[in-house]
């Protein structure tokens, strides 16, 4: 099977234009949007959930929502990637809350399949990702998005402000409050996550 090229190998694209072309029945636009957006969507979900299989489910579900909304998409009202980012964040949050509802312990992290050198580091990484994801799920949506865009996407504050349609000052406030809330929520796990210094 021919491997599809990853997002980074593609030229920059106008997502809104591609979506409009998709809605007009352009098959090439469907392929271009898939190649451009699906890897990002999957990576975002994988970071939030820490589970590749669940991330694939989320990616497929989020992209399906995009295909369905395409004919009614109103260009200029929102960026496609930001809309999709929000959809993925909400889908992942729902999954994480359901996990909590099933009573899974916060530090219940699966053992790596092949324990060996680096297995402990892998466990610690997984525990950190899991704890962070659960704490993120409890943040108010705008705080969660601001923190994720800043740290997961590496977006600048002006970029986040543009994508969320708020001021730069509001972004700074949201990220600061979000991180304070994360610190409060994870305070009891600081040592277990390897951040206790003395």
């Amino acid at each position, binding site marked *: 099977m021919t491997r599809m090229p990853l997002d980074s190998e593609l030229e920059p694209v106008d997502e809104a234009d591609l979506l409009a072309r998709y809605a007009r029945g352009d098959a090439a636009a469907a392929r271009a949007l898939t190649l451009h957006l699906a890897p990002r969507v999957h990576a975002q979900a994988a970071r939030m959930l820490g589970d590749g299989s669940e991330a*694939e489910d989320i990616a497929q579900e989020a992209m399906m929502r995009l295909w369905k909304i*395409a004919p009614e998409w109103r260009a200029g009202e929102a960026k496609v990637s930001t809309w999709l980012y929000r959809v993925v964040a909400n889908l992942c949050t729902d999954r994480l809350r359901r996990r909590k509802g099933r009573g899974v312990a916060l530090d219940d992290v699966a053992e790596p399949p092949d324990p060996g050198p680096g297995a402990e580091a892998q466990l610690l990484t997984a525990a950190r990702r899991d704890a962070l994801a659960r704490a993120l799920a409890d943040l108010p949506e705008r705080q969660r998005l601001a923190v994720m865009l800043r740290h*997961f996407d*590496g977006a600048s504050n002006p970029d986040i402000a543009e994508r969320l349609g708020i001021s730069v000052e509001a972004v700074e406030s949201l990220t600061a409050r979000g991180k304070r809330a994360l610190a409060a929520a994870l305070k009891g796990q600081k040592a277990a*996550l390897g951040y206790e210094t003395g």
Partner: protein
Amino acid sequence: MTRKTDDTWIDALLDDVCSAPVPEPGEDVMARILSDAMDAQPAPGGGGALPRWRQALQALGGWMSVGGLVAATAVGFAVGLGGVVDAALLTSGAGWADSAYYQDALSANGWDLEDG
């Protein structure tokens, strides 16, 4: 007075989690997503797929036609009720109901008999 907080470890946690590698999407899921896209894609030149209820609305001729259809259905329902509804209620204030055609239609459905 300022409250001293040490939240810098949260930045470290965020950095550590974000710098960890994430798996690439498998070829299977990419194929499934593309397949979904093709299945959900409107036909070329179709002007975009609409929700089913809007497709049904368009098939019936749009809002105006559906409005007319509802009005005609209401009149038909009233006509069908026959003796329950007074024909005067239908004709009062409605110029279209004065036409010979409509009066004939009423007679044909027995209104004249009901009115004595």
